[in-house]
């Protein structure tokens, strides 16, 4: 049933608005935190890519794959 006479509607609106505002503030703060996490994740990804250990591992993996491909080719010829 929709109330016909809406007295004190301003108070009801204010109460719900205050709750939504509090939620919004919380969400904005959490969004800021998530942005910081994403930024740090990006920095870490760059750090991982630029670290000498990571480069060595990449090169090693590529060499290993090349050797596998070569072995398969030789097997085909044989």
């Amino acid at each position, binding site marked *: *049933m*929709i*109330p016909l*006479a*809406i*007295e*004190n*509607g301003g*108070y*009801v609106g*204010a*109460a*719900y608005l*205050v*709750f939504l505002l*509090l939620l919004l503030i*919380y969400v904005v703060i*959490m969004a800021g*935190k*998530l942005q910081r*996490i994403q930024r*740090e*994740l990006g920095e*870490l990804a760059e*750090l*991982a890519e630029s*670290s*000498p*250990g990571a480069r060595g591992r990449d090169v090693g993996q590529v060499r290993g794959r090349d050797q596998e491909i070569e072995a398969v080719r030789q097997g085909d010829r044989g």
Partner: protein
Amino acid sequence: MTALQSITLRRLAIATLVVMGAGYALAFLYAPQDAQEGFAQKIFYLHVPLAIVSLLGFIVGGIHAIRHLRTGDPKHDARSYVSIHISIIFGLAVLLTGAIWAKSQWGEWWEWREPTLVSFLIVFLLYATYYPLRYAIEDRDRQARYASVFAITAGAFVPLNFLAVRLAQPYIHPRTFSSSGGLPGEMLLAFLVCLAGMALLWVTLVWFELDAKAASGNLAKIRRALEASA
């Protein structure tokens, strides 16, 4: 955050939106207008679920604190901290919405002679001291232990406080569930759905913040490992 957790959180958020939407649709469109309070009674569907969930959240924080002290697992300390954190936000909303309702009904923002109001303020202020207490201690383990002791003590105070208020003579604050008669069926249905929605919102926010905390912790671990290997 794992993919499964992310999906669960998304489902939980959708369920929260659906239940809260249904609850407030029932409150505004289905539940009749209160004969005494008029339209301002609609604040009740927000204020009372917030108060109940907030108080239960403090107790949940205490239960996690007990588990933390028993096991020493920092996961339980994080759950206790986040439960209390979200409950404090809900508690602030209770005080603000309650003050607005009081102004509409009594013409005053606050009534110091009313035990319901004052007792909730005491609980809220008690938990407001949780942050300075926690962050005044630098050592992480001690910080978690002391915070857990606080959460258990304060958590035990919540039901005692609630009981004392129920036993006390109310001054002017209405009782939602009393022996002299409860809510009419339509109002009760709307109220219960709003309460379920508010509980789901609390769980969603706790889950969300715990996930963010876990992600932040994992990042710090990776950073330390990378810096050590560099």
